[in-house]
């Protein structure tokens, strides 16, 4: 087999893995959109905030250290203990639930019945706020996140492919873990939505707010639950991405990577998020591999959007989205 084909296959596989990571972020979007009709731009920042909180708790950092130091002239930074990863993850999940409650109580509670576009803009405001809040709480330095996930070259795949093609594929262990986690997450979420009482209530709310209210479903509870779920998905995405590229500001930009995934898959479909993620992941890696060198590289920044844009012109609701029916 010629080298370029083998390289292409490696790029393809890596694209699939990257796609899974995109899908992980996109999942959070879909959850909130389905249940409350809010297009949550802040999902990426939620992931950043979750990762920052996790690192902060693990390192035993003093929250608001910089602010306290600036106001009182003290020199606080760490409590001096370290929290084991699992406990820290549990604590962070609690923080995310608390955050979901506060966000719902203070912001979206007051915006019920507004235009979707106003809600969207509110989430952009929320994203800015959380970004600043995360930095003020935990500082803005780039931090390493290590919760004990395996990283680096997977020797088994390397060996098998070497024996097959005479060239070992480089597949990151972390990507494999992410794939497994994403699969579990999707199965769990779908099962939750289909078979549990609260999941059914969630789907009812997604269908029709007023009808759901009239059969005794608490909108507030469902929304807090959905935001908590989204926070939890953000935490998982934050752990994966944070381990991959360090916990830093640019982590919040993964939201921008997830948007074309959503457009492609449709805003309302969980399988759509996965399939869209895979298509985008493979598409942009293959494009960069095949066409990128001809036009100056770094096409990954925009290829996904262009692909989604062209795709949408032919199918405005995305692959799996609900057909948009408009009436006067």
């Amino acid at each position, binding site marked *: 087999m010629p080298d370029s084909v083998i390289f292409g296959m490696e790029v393809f596989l890596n694209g699939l893995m990257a796609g899974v990571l995109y899908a992980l972020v996109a999942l959070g979007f879909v959850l909130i959109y389905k249940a409350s009709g809010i297009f949550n731009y802040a999902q990426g920042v939620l992931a950043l905030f979750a990762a920052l909180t996790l690192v902060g708790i693990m390192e035993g950092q003093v929250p608001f250290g910089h*602010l306290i130091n600036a106001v009182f002239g003290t020199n606080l930074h760490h409590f001096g203990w370290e929290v084991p990863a699992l406990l820290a993850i549990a604590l962070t999940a609690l923080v995310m639930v608390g955050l979901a409650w506060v966000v719902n109580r203070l912001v979206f509670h007051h915006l019920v019945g507004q235009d979707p*576009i106003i809600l969207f803009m509110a989430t*952009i405001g*929320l994203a*800015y706020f959380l970004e*600043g809040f995360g930095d003020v709480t935990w500082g803005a330095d780039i931090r390493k996140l290590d919760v004990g996930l395996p990283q680096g070259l997977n020797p088994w795949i390397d060996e098998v492919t070497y024996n097959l093609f005479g060239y070992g594929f480089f597949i990151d262990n972390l990507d494999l873990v992410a794939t497994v986690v994403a699969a579990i997450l999707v199965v769990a979420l779908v099962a939750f939505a289909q078979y549990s009482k609260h999941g059914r209530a969630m789907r009812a709310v997604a269908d029709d707010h007023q009808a759901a209210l009239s059969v005794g479903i608490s909108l507030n509870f469902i929304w807090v639950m959905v935001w908590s779920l989204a926070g939890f998905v953000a935490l998982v995405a934050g752990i994966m991405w944070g381990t991959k590229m360090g916990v830093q500001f640019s982590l919040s930009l993964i939201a*921008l990577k997830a948007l074309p995934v959503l*457009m492609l898959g449709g805003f309302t479909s969980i399988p759509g998020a996965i399939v869209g993620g895979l298509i985008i992941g493979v598409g942009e890696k293959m494009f960069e591999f095949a066409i990128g060198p001809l036009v100056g590289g770094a096409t990954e920044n925009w290829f996904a*959007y262009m692909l989604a844009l062209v795709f949408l012109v032919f199918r*405005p609701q995305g692959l799996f989205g609900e057909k948009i029916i408009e009436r006067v």
Partner: protein
Amino acid sequence: MFYREAGDFKTSYVDDSQTFPIRVDRYGYYALLAVAFGVLPFLVNDYWVNAVLLPFLIYAIAAIGLNILVGYCGQVSLGTGGFMAVGAYACYKLMTGFPEINIFFHVILSGGITAAVCVLFGLPSLRIKGFYLAVATLAAQFFLVWLFNRVGWFYNYSASGQINAPERTVFGIAVTGAQNPPWAAYLFCLVFTVGCALIARNLTRGMAGRKWMAIRDMDIAAEIIGVNPLKAKLTAFAVSGFFVGIAGALFFSVYLGAIEVGEAFGINKSFLVLFMVIIGGLGSIFGSFAGAAFLVLLPVFLKNVLVGGLGWPTDLAAHLEFMIVGALILIFLIAEPHGLAQLWRVTKEKLRLWPFPH
């Protein structure tokens, strides 16, 4: 003298649709223009022009442009940064390619070029609606920034990849380049801002504006009453692109003088202008000015108070600024989704009745 008209004696449509029906408003507006053109140029210094006035004037133009698209026509765009970059690079190519032509025309031409690009990216809006469109405009944002970054022709193959504005004069006085006097830069931008505001105000209260608003309120219904959605949407994109392009050209040539596209026209610029429109008020020209003023002054104010007054570190102040801007947007959306312009409108209504509200 009370703040109201002496009875309702309008006998023609012209009277009925005038912008300032109340005399105090009208004279106030003339006085404001007189001060802006006649007095301020003599008072301003370098700091005021570069920190406050120029960004305010330029962002006001961009906000007007975006407001036409989002506030009047209801097509949410997150590509403003990219379109401003088109204006900036068009202006740069024109300035270096045709140095004998006055910079004034270059800026207007860059607006025209941006309008064309904007229409191109607006074409999908006929099929794609709502959030899908908002995300689709991000394609313009990322693609355009990448294009200007990677294709050497746009930055004349300069080694740094930056573009620098050469010195150009209007009536013999430099308005761009490193040696331009602050008052000249200020006046040059002011002329454009006032011109754009006039055009926008008159477009939006005429037939074009009513068509846009019909599309915004419900595009299918608008189509049934005879508004051509293709024309209405694309004219909105074109007019919006024209203003945003002018803003981008001025931002580059007069305000910054040298830019690196990813930094100056990144996604954050798109959001900044969008926030100006939201905080100022969707569907209001006055709101565009109010929003631009608010978001230009806020960082200056915070910086002076937190860093200058309290002596806090700059990075902490920057993070707090993020928090405050985000919180303000949330507060505005909750308390007054129609922004500063609506507050102003309510105040005026109250003033009209004062002191006899019953």
